[in-house]
C-alpha cells in the first residue's frame, strides 16, 4: 500500500502513534525508530517532521531491508545509550502500562522481561489431536507467573519439545503452556547487547535471543557488563517492527531515555555477602533472570501483523472504552456509541452503526449503511453504499451502489458504481471500474503490487 506499516492508520491514526504514546507515557525521552530499508526510514522521517507533535526525541535509523530483529538491534547497538532497552514492535497496540512492565523489570533486576498475553483462542482447539500445534510459543513460567523458565517459539509444528533437565529439577513442577502469546515487547538489560555481539548466530529476538537467555539464565556466568550496574541506569527503549515471516512490517523503532536513578541502599554489598540465604536465592533465580509480564484478562493486547489482524485491531480499537484508554483522538458520540467528526455530512436515511469511526470532512449521500468500519478523512460516498467490517483511508471515493466487506481501501482510491469487494485490498489512488466484483484479491497498480502486498 506504499505506506510503511508504521504509518497505516488504525482508527485514523498512524500505527506508530500508539507506540509513541505508550513510550511517552512511560517517561521515556529518547526513541530510536529503526526502519527496514532507507526508503521506509525517509518516509517515517517525513512523517515525523510533518505530523509528529509529541515530546519524544525521535531519531530514525534505517537498517538493511532483510534484517531480522536481532540483526537490526545489533546494527543500531551503538546508538543505544541506556542500561535497559525497551524493544517493541510498532504493530503492537496495548493498553498495558509500559511503565508497569518496566517497574517489574527493574525490581527483579532482570536480564530480559517479555510481555505475554492470553491467546484468544486455544491453540489446542485449533489443532487435530495427535498433531502438534503450529505458530505457538511454548512457555514455561514459575508458579508465581513471574520467571520465564522455558520459551520456545514454534512457527511450524514440531516433533518434540526439549526441556533442560536442570531447570525441571530446580523447579520440580513446570507447566509448559501454549495459550500464551508473545507480543514482541521486550525489555532488555544492556548486557543483552553484549551477548548479541558475542553470538552473531542469534538473528531474531523472539526466535533466538529470548530462548538463549532463558536457557542460560541459571548459568553461573556473571552478567556481561555487571560492573556497570552501579552506573546511572537508564532505559533505552526501542520499538521494533518485527520482520517475521509474514514480512508484514517494515519499520523498526527504538527509544532511549533516562530515568531517575534509583537511590542505592548503603551497605548493599555487605548484606549480599553476609546473608547466605539471600545469596542462595540469588543463585536459584539465576544470574540472567528472565522475567515475564503476563497481561491480565481485562487488558487489551493485540498485534496488527496481518491483514486480518489489522482489520480486527481497527474494529477493536474503536470500542469506546478502549479508545479512551489508548488515547485515540476523536470525538465520541455518546448517543450512538461511535466516533463521528463534526464535519461529517450524512444524507437521507444514511446510518452509521455503533462502533464505527468516520473522519473529518467525509460526506455520505442517501441510504448508506456503515457497520463496524473505520472511514478516513475527506472520503466521499455515493448513495446506497454498504460498508461492513472495512477500513477506508483518507480521501477514498465510493460511488453509488458499492458494497464493501472485510476490505481495506487505501487513500485516494476510487471505486466506481456498483463495485462489490469482499476480503480485498485496494491500493492507493487506484480506480476500480464500475460493476466489477472482487473477492480475496489485492488490487493495486502494477508497480505498487510488490510493495503493497500485506501478506
Amino acid at each position, binding site marked *: 500500500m506504499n505506506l510503511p506499516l508504521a504509518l497505516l492508520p488504525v482508527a485514523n491514526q498512524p500505527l506508530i502513534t500508539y507506540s509513541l504514546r505508550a513510550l511517552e507515557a512511560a517517561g521515556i525521552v529518547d526513541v530510536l525508530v529503526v526502519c527496514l530499508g532507507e526508503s521506509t526510514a525517509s518516509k517515517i522521517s517525513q512523517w515525523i517532521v510533518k505530523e509528529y507533535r509529541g515530546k519524544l526525541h525521535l531519531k530514525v535509523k534505517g537498517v538493511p531491508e532483510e534484517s531480522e530483529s536481532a540483526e537490526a538491534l545489533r546494527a543500531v547497538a551503538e546508538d543505544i545509550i541506556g542500561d535497559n532497552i525497551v524493544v517493541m514492535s510498532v504493530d503492537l497496540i496495548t493498553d498495558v502500562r509500559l511503565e508497569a512492565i518496566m517497574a517489574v523489570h527493574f525490581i527483579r533486576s532482570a536480564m530480559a522481561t517479555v510481555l505475554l498475553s492470553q491467546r484468544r483462542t486455544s491453540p489446542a482447539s485449533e489443532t487435530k489431536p495427535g498433531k502438534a500445534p503450529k505458530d505457538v510459543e511454548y512457555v514455561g513460567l514459575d508458579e508465581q507467573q513471574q520467571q520465564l523458565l522455558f520459551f520456545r517459539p514454534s512457527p511450524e509444528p514440531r516433533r518434540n519439545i526439549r526441556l533442560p533437565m536442570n531447570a525441571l529439577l530446580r523447579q520440580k513442577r*513446570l507447566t509448559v503452556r501454549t495459550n500464551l502469546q508473545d507480543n514482541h515487547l521486550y525489555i532488555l538489560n544492556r548486557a543483552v547487547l553484549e551477548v548479541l555481539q558475542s553470538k552473531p548466530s542469534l538473528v531474531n529476538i523472539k526466535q533466538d535471543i529470548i530462548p538463549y537467555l532463558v536457557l542460560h539464565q541459571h548459568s553461573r556466568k556473571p552478567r556481561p557488563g555487571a560492573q556497570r550496574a552501579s552506573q546511572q541506569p537508564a532505559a533505552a527503549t526501542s520499538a521494533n517492527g518485527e520482520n517475521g515471516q509474514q514480512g508484514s512490517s517494515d519499520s523498526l523503532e527504538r527509544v532511549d531515555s533516562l530515568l531517575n536513578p534509583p537511590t542505592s541502599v548503603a551497605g548493599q554489598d555487605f548484606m549480599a555477602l553476609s546473608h547466605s540465604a539471600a545469596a542462595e536465592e540469588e543463585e536459584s533465580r539465576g544470574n540472567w533472570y528472565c522475567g515475564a509480564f503476563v497481561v491480565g484478562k481485562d487488558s487489551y493486547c493485540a498485534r496488527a501483523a496481518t491483514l486480518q489482524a489489522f482489520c480486527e485491531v481497527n474494529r477493536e480499537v474503536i470500542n469506546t472504552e478502549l479508545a479512551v484508554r489508548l488515547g485515540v483522538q476523536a470525538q465520541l458520540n455518546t448517543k450512538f456509541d461511535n466516533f463521528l467528526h463534526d464535519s461529517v455530512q450524512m444524507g437521507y436515511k444514511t446510518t452509521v452503526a455503533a462502533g464505527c469511526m468516520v473522519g473529518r470532512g467525509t460526506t455520505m449521500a442517501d441510504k448508506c449503511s456503515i457497520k463496524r468500519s473505520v472511514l478516513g478523512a475527506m472520503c466521499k460516498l455515493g448513495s446506497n453504499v454498504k460498508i461492513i467490517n472495512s477500513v477506508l483511508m483518507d480521501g477514498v471515493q465510493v460511488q453509488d451502489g458499492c458494497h464493501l466487506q472485510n476490505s481495506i481501501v487505501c487513500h485516494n482510491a476510487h471505486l466506481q458504481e456498483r463495485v462489490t469487494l469482499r476480503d480485498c485490498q485496494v491500493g492507493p489512488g487506484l480506480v476500480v471500474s464500475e460493476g466489477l466484483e472482487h473477492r480475496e484479491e489485492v488490487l493495486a497498480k502494477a508497480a505498487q503490487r510488490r510493495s503493497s502486498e500485506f501478506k
Partner: protein
Amino acid sequence: MAPSRKAPVGLAPGEEALIAVLLADSFNQRFRPITLERPKVLLPLVGVPLLDYTLEWLASNNVAEVHVICCAHAEQVKQHLEAAGWLQERASLTVKVIVSTTCKSAGEALREIDVKDMIKSDFVLVSGDVVSNMDLGSAVRAHRARREKNKNALMTMVMKAGTTPAQRRRLGDHSLLVAMEPHTKRLLRYDEVEAGKPLPTQAIIDAHFWGETDAVEIRTDLADTYIYICAPEVLMLFSDNFDFQNVRKDFVTGVLSEEELGQQLHVHELHREYAACVLNARSYDAISRDVLQRWTFPFVPDTNLLPIGGASGSSNFGLGRQFKYKEHSVKLGRKARIGHSTCIGAGTVIDDGAEVAQSVIGRNCHIGKDAVVVGSYLLEGVRIHNGAQVSHSLLCDGVVVKEDATVCPGSILSFKVVVGQGQVIEPLTSLSMCRQLQQSASLSDDELEYAMAVTASPPSEAAVGRSPEASGPGAADQAAAAVSDGDIGEDGGQYNASVVGPDGAGHQWLPHDVDPYGLAAAAARFSIAPPPPGPPSREDDLSEEDESTAAAAEEAAQDAAAADPETSFKREVAETFLRCVHDGFDQDLAVIELNGLKIAEHRDFADCARYILTTMLTLCLPAAPRAKAEYRSLFADTAPDTATPAGKTELLTRLQQLLKTWAPLLQKFLRSEDDQVDLLLTLEEFCGEEGVFEGTGEQGGLFSAVFAKVLQLLYDADVIEEDAFFKWADEKAHAEAEDRVFLAKAADFIKWLREAEEEEESDDEDDEDNDED
C-alpha cells in the same frame, strides 16, 4: 489386635464396596539372601511384618475384600495370615488367599487373576510392601467419576508429590519424570530413570500433546507409591498382552505409547498423606525412620494397632521423648544409653554401657556390655555380645555377633548367621546360611532355588521358597558373580573363615544385580548405609553452553529431517537395506522388506531403487556421522583418495564387489526405462551432494571423480541399460550448463555406448545381411 475401629477415612457407606488385589511378592531379588528364607512381605518393619501394614491400611479404608496373591513362600504367607487373624471371618474385611507359585512377575499374577475371573469391578492394586496412611476414598471417587465419563480411564496411579531429590535418594528409588495435563491429571508421559544413572540433560516431550491441551505439566517431584486403582479392563489388557511383566515398565509404558486406542491413565497426587513402598534395603531404612518419626500415623508403634504375632502376644509400646519407643518388659542396664528414634521390643535386654541409637531392636534381643548399635535393624532374638559394634545394618532373627566383632555399614546378615569373635564384616556384605552356588550361571532361577534347597539348611523352608524372580539378571552377570564366588563353592559346606571368622557361620553372597554402573555402586545405593550427604555435584553449568548449542543443532537437524518426508524415506530405505546386509538376509527377504516399506510409504519402485543404490555407494566410504552405531561396521574404514588413480581403483573395486551381490536386488526395483533414468538422476544428485544428500556427511562428492566409471559398472552389472543412458543424455542435453556437469563427465562413456550400439546394429545388419546371403 483385630482392627475393629471405624476409621475416619475410606469410602462412605453408600458407595460400592472396594476390592483390593495385594501382591504378596515383589518379584525382585533386592532382599536376597533374606528372601530365600522369608518372603519380603513378612519382613518386620519396626516390629510389624510389612504385609500387616498394607492389610491394616486397606481395612482402615473400608476395603471389603482383599485377594492376596502368594507366589514365593506361599505357605509362610498363608500361615502368617492365619496366625495374625486376617483369615477369620470379620464384618468389614474378607481376605482371600490365592496361591500361585508359578508366577514370576506381576504380569503373570494378574493374568492368573483374570483367568479366575473373580474381579468384576474397579479394584485397588497394591504391593504387599506398601506402607501408607492415605485416604483411598478420594482417589477412588475421582477414579470412578472419571470412569463414569470415560470408560477408557483405565487406571489411577497414586503418586507422592513434593519429594525432594534428597528424599528420593533416601528411598534409593528411580528418578521419575512425569508429564500430565494439569487439570485432568491425565498422565501423558512416565519415565523412570534408574537410580544412580545420570539423568539426561534434556527431557524430550512429544509436541503433539499440545495438540490436545494448552498446558502440559512436567514434574520431577513425584514418587510412585505402587498403589494403583484399576478398572477390570486392566486385567484383560494384561491377558491380551502376554508379554507384560511389570506394571510400570510394560503396562504403563504400553498404554501411553498406544494413545490411538484412547486408553488413559491418571495421576492422583498425595500431598500430606504418606505412602511409600519398601523396594530395597535403603527404602526399608528410610521408611522405618518415617514410621518412627510418625509420618505414617496411625501406623506407629505406640498406637499398638498392628498385630505382632509370637509368644509375647500383642504389643504394648509406649512413646518416650525423642521418638523412643519401648515395650514394657524391656530391661535396660543402668548405664545403657538409648539415642533418639529408637524402638525396642519386649524381652530385650540391653546391658550396662551399651549404646543404641536410631535403631529398631526386635523382641528378645540381647545387647552386651559396651556394645554399640547405630542405625541398625535387629529382628527377633539377635544377640550382640560385649563390645561388638553394629552400624547401619540389617540383622535377621537369631543372628549372633560375638565379642568385639564389628559389622560395618550396609551389611545384611540373614537368619542365624554368626559373626566370629573380633571379626570385622566389611561394608556392604551380605551373609546367609544358604550358599550362593557357583554353578548358578548355568541354572535358571528356579533350578538355583531348587539346588539351594537341597544343599542348604533349613530345607523345609527353602523347598517352598521358589522365589519367583522378575525377568532375572542376565546369565552373564550371574556367571561373573559365580566365578568370583568360586572359593566359596569349593570349600564345600565349610564357612569362609576370612569372612565370618573361625567361630562364625555363614556364606558370603555377592551381589549379582544387573547393573552396568558397577556392582559396588549399586550395592551402596540400595544398602542401609546412609546416602552420601549433599546433592550430587551439579556439573550442569560449565558444560551447559556447549551441550545446549550442540543439542540445538542436533534438534534443528532432526526437525529438518522430520520435516522432509524424502529424507525420512531415504533413511528408512537405507536402514532397511543396511539391516539386510548386516544380518545377511536372502535377497528375496530383502525384496519383501523393501516392498513393505514401499507400500507403507506410498512410493514406487524407482524410489526404493535410488536409495538402495546410494546406500550401496555410501557403503564404499566411511560411515556418515549420523549412521547408526550397529551398522557402522559395514562401512569402509577409510575414504580412498580419489585424486590418485589408486584411490579411484580402490573405490570402484569396493563398489564392484557390492554390485556383484546386490545388482539383482536393484534390478528387481527397476521396472522400466524411466525408473533407470530416475536412478541416474539420483546418482547425479548424490555425487553433487544436492537435495536430500546435501549436508548429510555421506561424501557422495567423492564419487563424482569416478562418475563415468560408476555408470560403466552399473551398465556392466545390467542395472541400467543403454537406452536409459541415451534417454538420460538426451534429456540432459537441453539442460542449463551447470546441470550438465555430470553429463560432460559421462560424455565419453555415452559416446562409447553409442558407438558400441551402432556397431552392434551394423553387426546386426551384417548378420541380417549374412542371413540373407
